[in-house]
């Protein structure tokens, strides 16, 4: 019998091992924080006592203290303005002023006073929301069509060259509309968001419902393919680029900060940070690797599951991780430093841009809603 079992060819063993090692390594890195490599020394990270920051915010004279702190928190030698992106592509950014498109050369255009936005599948259009409106926009801000809907949120655009859908949530539930603004319909009365289309040719959508469960629905047949048990607050849903893994980032009260599901809805991996919280994740294009930002106490750190060591560390929260389309650069939003930090995934490069809020005419720190070719 031993010989019979040994004769059985086991498919995909080598590939599965190479896919798994980065995940195991990442879990190990969370368990045992790896000290920052020496080549990151020039990343000037200064621990700032939270109490000092709070005290500084209490009075007008405190403003100067905050400004002093800001001068030393963040990446040293940051550019004062965004002169260019480190690699090709365009960004979609949401600030208090509205939705912006940022070109590769750093130039930017305000599309209008919209709140949330999503790129169309090939980056030719943008779908954006007002409180009671969903709109499809040209990249110069011209409006293609609008749809009046109550309390629109979570627009997500997906499809092929010839057939696209926009999923979104309004007061009635989860809805879907064709890319030309027609055939708007309710998909799930209990759908609340966040939402994530599964990459591929079918219109299959993961969403969180009003009971805190994550479900997968075929948007054309309206059939629910699977549904998880209640998970509590679901902050984010994101598919790997091959559509094989779905990541759900959960509220801080949950035992597992992140649960990764298989395509079939089975829990695949759970990530729990014992002394902290996962504040952001981003699936690296073309792989199962993920960038993960963790907050532990007053400090945060960032790592990528197929790279060794911590890529960035510092006070405050890292948010809005966004990969460049080629998967080589990662944009990290760092509100405490008012910086965008572009980190190369192999750890061999870093660029930072300061004064992000001011550049996007915003009092709150701008959010990145996508980086497309």
């Amino acid at each position, binding site marked *: *019998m*031993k010989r*019979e*079992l*040994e*004769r*059985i*060819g*086991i*498919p*995909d*063993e080598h590939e*599965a*091992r190479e*896919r*798994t*090692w980065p*995940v*195991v*390594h990442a*879990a*190990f*890195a969370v*368990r*045992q924080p*790896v000290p920052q490599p020496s080549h990151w020394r020039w990343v000037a990270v200064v621990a700032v006592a939270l109490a000092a920051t709070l005290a500084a915010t209490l009075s007008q004279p405190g403003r100067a203290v905050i400004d002093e702190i800001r001068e030393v928190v963040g990446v040293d030698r940051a550019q004062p303005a965004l002169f260019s992106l480190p690699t090709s592509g365009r960004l979609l950014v949401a600030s208090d002023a509205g939705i912006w498109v940022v070109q590769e050369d750093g130039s930017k255009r305000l599309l209008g006073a919209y709140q949330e936005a999503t790129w169309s599948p090939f980056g030719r259009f943008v779908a954006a929301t007002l409180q009671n409106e969903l709109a499809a926009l040209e990249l110069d801000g011209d409006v293609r069509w609008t749809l009046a809907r109550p309390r629109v949120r979570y627009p997500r655009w997906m499809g092929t060259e010839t057939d696209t859908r926009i999923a979104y949530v309004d007061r009635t539930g989860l809805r879907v509309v064709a890319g030309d603004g027609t055939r708007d319909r309710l998909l799930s009365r209990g759908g609340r968001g966040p939402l994530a289309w599964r990459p591929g040719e079918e219109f299959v959508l993961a969403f969180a419902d009003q009971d805190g469960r994550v479900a*997968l629905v075929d948007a054309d047949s309206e059939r629910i*393919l*699977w549904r998880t048990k209640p998970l509590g607050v679901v902050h984010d849903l994101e598919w790997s680029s091959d559509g*094989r893994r779905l990541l759900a980032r959960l509220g801080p009260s949950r035992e597992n900060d992140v649960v990764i599901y*298989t*395509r*079939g*809805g*089975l829990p*695949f*991996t*759970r990530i729990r940070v014992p002394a902290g919280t996962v504040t952001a994740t981003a699936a690296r294009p073309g792989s199962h690797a993920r960038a993960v930002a963790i907050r532990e106490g007053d400090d945060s750190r960032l790592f990528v599951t197929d790279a*060794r060591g911590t890529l960035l560390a510092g006070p405050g929260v890292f948010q809005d991780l966004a990969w460049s389309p080629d998967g080589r650069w990662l944009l990290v939003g760092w509100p405490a430093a008012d910086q965008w930090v572009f980190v190369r995934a192999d750890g061999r490069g870093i660029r930072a841009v300061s004064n992000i809020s001011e550049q996007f005419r915003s009092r709150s720190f701008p959010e990145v809603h996508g980086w497309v070719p």
Partner: protein
Amino acid sequence: MRVGRDERAQVRGAQRGSVSDLEALFRTHWPRAYRAAYLVTHDAAAAEDIAQESFLAAIRALDSFDRRRPFGPWLHRIVVNRAIDWSRARRLRSEVELVDSIPAPNPAAPTGGDTLAALARLSPEHRAVVVMRYALEFTPGEIAKALDLPRGTVNSRLRRGLDALSEEL
């Protein structure tokens, strides 16, 4: 089972945070973990998930691991129990219309397809003891301990499993 000095040093290193020691353990034990998961589940994607999840579980429990014990059987026990759970869950899922979760058959028939097909016709519980005995080389006593079963049950499952396989083959 005796623990080699190298493995003991690797476990100690991993407990202290050494990535290279963890990687050595991973690369040593991955093939058998994945193989065992595949032989119980007959599904490559599930085997990958199970083997990976088992390594993650092992990492979570690494601090409490007794270095005098061998690492492999400890890991394989996790793998086989998860593979049994997965196979049972698949049986249930097929009754609740989750077609998307049922894996498609592997496109290319692997070597040893007859044995694999015969193994697939056993229940997950019988499959698991056969795999543990003949692929992982556990003794019946070790299987009983790993699966929390009476030794007599292990022996009877082994006998029935082998009888069924010899009829098929």
